[in-house]
Each structure stands twice: as structure tokens, then as C-alpha cells.
């Protein structure tokens, strides 16, 4: 069992429960901004590269102001990178339009689009990670529900999250029990696997029955009622408007190019 993955979730959960100005922003605001970010980033043309770079400001700012350790985010991006790499790596082979000449190197369209894919990947994953790390699962769920996601689904997400560690722990304990009696064999034999997973499943079903029992004992009638609802305040509006304005500007004009012109213009 991959213990490291559980530690990951635990870490993300800890980060999500911190209290910084970024964390205190309404979850809905952050969700809407993140969605807009991803859509706009993905709407660029295939060969966009420099135009994408100003977008890096958003995840970086969020991570910095949210006191999220950058190393944590970077490792997660790195771990997820191979897939984009695999699919994108075909581009340089398929598309051989020469696009630029840098010294002795001819840059083909394929390499450009490949780089664009990778940059887009970093941006979208970074923004999503920033969203989760700066909001936390529960506030995120509440925000989603206020945005119109069916309550049953949000409840499902929160219950899943709640019992993730519990079930994982049970599975880990069972696995450890098997390993201790397995004489060093790494992977489970198939029959043992069926039995172990089967047991874990039955225990999970038993647990869900007990949870249901406890819910009924406290008057559960099929619907989960909510205690507090977050409300938008002026800082949330400012955040949303500011970010959206920046994204739209960065999409409409190539800000990096402009900066480059400014720099080279002043040099000359």
C-alpha cells in the first residue's frame, strides 16, 4: 500500500486548514477564479508560449500568500508530469515546420507546441493545487454546494473524505498482518487478495451500517442539513474582479511580449 499517498492527503488537508487571508476568501470566489483561469489558459492557440507566462503569477501569488511550501506543490507537479510528457512528446516528431532560428538551432513548430503543452500543464495543475491547498476539502465542498452542485454529491465527497483514512488504516493493518506471515513476498497472491479485499469490503459495509445507525439515532431523515453558509464580502468581490481582469488582459494582449519590447526598447 502506498503510505506516501496517504501522507500526501494528510498534508494537503493540514495545509487546507490553515488560516491566512487567502484561506479566508470565500471558497466560491476561488473556485470561480480557478475555473476561469483553466479555461482561459486552455483557450490559447497551439503555439502560444510567451503569452502564457504572465499566468504563472496567479498560482505563485496564491501559494505565496497562502503560506504553502512551494516545494510541496512542485513535487506534486513533477510526479504528475510524465503523462503530459508522454502524450506531448509526439508533437516534435509530427510537426516539423521550422518556426524560428536561434543560433545554430532550428526550432520547429512541434517543439513549440510541446513546450506549450508542458507550460499549460504546469499552469493548470498549479492552479488546481493552489485551490485545494488554500481552501481545504470541507470549505471547498461547502462552496461547491452553494454554487449549485447537488447536495447529495457534496455529501458523498465529504463522507468519502471523512472515512478515507479510517478505511485505509484498516486496509493497511490487514495488509501488514498478511505481510508479517508471508515470508517476504511483495505482492499478494490472487486468492489472498480476493479474501483481503473482500474482508475490507465487508468491514466497510459494516461500518457504513453503524454510521447509519448513529445517524438514525440522531434523527436523520435522508437529508443533511447545513449549519452555516458563507457569504461574500467586499474582499471576495475584489479578489474575483481583480483576477478576472488580469486574466482577460493577459489573454487579450501578450503581456510578456510587451514587457520584452519595453526592455529591449529601453536598452536600444
Amino acid at each position: 500500500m502506498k503510505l506516501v499517498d496517504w501522507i500526501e492527503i494528510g498534508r494537503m488537508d493540514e495545509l487546507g486548514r490553515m488560516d491566512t487571508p487567502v484561506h479566508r476568501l470565500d471558497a466560491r470566489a476561488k473556485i470561480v477564479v480557478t475555473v476561469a483561469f483553466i479555461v482561459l489558459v486552455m483557450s490559447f492557440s497551439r503555439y502560444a508560449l510567451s503569452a502564457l507566462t504572465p499566468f504563472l503569477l496567479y498560482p505563485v501569488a496564491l501559494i505565496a500568500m497562502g503560506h504553502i511550501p512551494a516545494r510541496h506543490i512542485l513535487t506534486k507537479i513533477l510526479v504528475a508530469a510524465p503523462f503530459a510528457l508522454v502524450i506531448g512528446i509526439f508533437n516534435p516528431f509530427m510537426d516539423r515546420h521550422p518556426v524560428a532560428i536561434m543560433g545554430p538551432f532550428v526550432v520547429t513548430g512541434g517543439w513549440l507546441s510541446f513546450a506549450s503543452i508542458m507550460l499549460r500543464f504546469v499552469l493548470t495543475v498549479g492552479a488546481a493545487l493552489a485551490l485545494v491547498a488554500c481552501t481545504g476539502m470541507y470549505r471547498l465542498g461547502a462552496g461547491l454546494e452553494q454554487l449549485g452542485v447537488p447536495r447529495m454529491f457534496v455529501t458523498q465527497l465529504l463522507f468519502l473524505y471523512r472515512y478515507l483514512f479510517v478505511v485505509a488504516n484498516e486496509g493497511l493493518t490487514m495488509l501488514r498482518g498478511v505481510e508479517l506471515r508471508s515470508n517476504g513476498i511483495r505482492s499478494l497472491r490472487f486468492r489472498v487478495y480476493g479474501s483481503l479485499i473482500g474482508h475490507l469490503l465487508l468491514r466497510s459495509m459494516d461500518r457504513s451500517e453503524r454510521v447509519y445507525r448513529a445517524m438514525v439515532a440522531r434523527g436523520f431523515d435522508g437529508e443533511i442539513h447545513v449549519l452555516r453558509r458563507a457569504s461574500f464580502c467586499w474582499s471576495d468581490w475584489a479578489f474575483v474582479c481583480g483576477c478576472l481582469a488580469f486574466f482577460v488582459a493577459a489573454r487579450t494582449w501578450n503581456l510578456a511580449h510587451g514587457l520584452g519590447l519595453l526592455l529591449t526598447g529601453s536598452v536600444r
Partner: protein
Amino acid sequence: MSHHIVEVRDLFFAYPDGTEALKGISFRIEHGVAVALVGANGAGKSTLLLHLNGYLPTTRGEVRIGDSALTRETAPMVRRAVGMVFQDPDDQLFMPTVAEDVAFGPLNAGLPADQVEDRVAMALERVGMTHVRERPPYRLSAGEKRAVAIATVLAMTPDILVMDEPSSNLDPRNRRRLIELLRSFAHTRIIATHDLELVVEVCSHVIVMDGGAIVAQGPTRAILDDEELMLAHGLERPHSLRHHHPHPPSA
């Protein structure tokens, strides 16, 4: 608080696979009394408890809580009067924060938000857990979880508290706190437990079960001191009755 008497008459119950779990249970508990339910594993204690709030339907016999017989229709009302605390706190704390877990019951009862807030504050205060109200439940220690689980039930202002193995998995200090808490309640308390020392300290009466039937019921000392009876039904005479220790002072 009205006088809620718990009365069970000739209760029988068999599981779908045919196992007879309860064979003719009858008892009557007066208001405000603390009664322990003791017996060996598999004696039927949990099954009996689940009848007291209508989770298991009464198929043969009668369960009366206060003035009403427990039926499918009266169950929701009864559940507000009978608060049940189960053995594993993880099964009872399923909301994102402690406050929301404690608010679960009152919200289901349809109380308005400000009253719910009051109940939450009161319940947490009562068990001494006000400082963890915004924490997610899985970040609590075993003792804290147990206390919060009790708070989730107290918030519904029940008249009768039913508890299944409340002192299991508690370290001595938390166990002591629990005992003090239970002694301080004025509710009717029905406690199924293996912890016979707790029974001596908290409960004035005892019901002994074996094989789905009641084999003895009466005042605690009289029953628990009967060594023969205890041994015959998978129990023992509690240590504190054997040597007449003075009770340790409260923490």
C-alpha cells in the same frame, strides 16, 4: 423533564438468519436511575439497546418509553427522548467539524439556527470540549472523541441516555473523567459495559444477561457481590467490592 420510565415487556427478537438474540426480556427503569447492563459477549446486550430507540423494530413484545409504546410512527419522537451513544466514536462523528457533528441532531429536529447554536455550546460545555469545536473529528484523541460523541447526543436534550461500552479504549485519566461525567448526569442512564468497576461507581442497579435472557436484576452491590452468580454467567466479582478500597479522589 417529564418522568420518562423505560419499560420492556416480554421482548423477543430473532435475526434474519434465525439466531434468537432476545428471549423474553422484561424490566422497568424509573426516572433518573443509572442502570448497568452486563453480560458475557453475545449475551444480547447490544441487540436490546438497539430496541430502545426503535432502530430494531419490536416484532414480539413491547417497549414503552414514557407514556408511549415504541412503534414505527412514534420512533422519531422517541429518538429525541432517548439519546444513544455507540461503542466506536468514529462511527458517530462523521461531519466536517465537531460543531457540525454536535449540531446534527438539533438540526434534524428542525430547530432554528440560533437555538441550534445554543444547544451546541451547551453540550460542548457540559462535556468540557468547547475548545475543539472547530476541529475535524479525526483530529481528536480517543478521549476527546468519546466526550464529543456524548455531546452530540446531549445536544438533543434527551431524558434517557443509552450507552454501549462507554469506557472502552480510554486511558485511566479519560476514563476517570468519563465516570465523573456520568455520575453528574441527572438523566436516566442505561449503560451496557464490561467495565464492572465503572458499574460499581456509577450505577445503582444492574441487569445481568446471558444467552438472550435476563438472569438477574437488582441493586448493584447485591448482584455483583454474588460471586457464584457472576462466575456462572461469564463475569467476575469486581475488585472494588472484594477489598473495599476507598474510592480515589476526583481529579
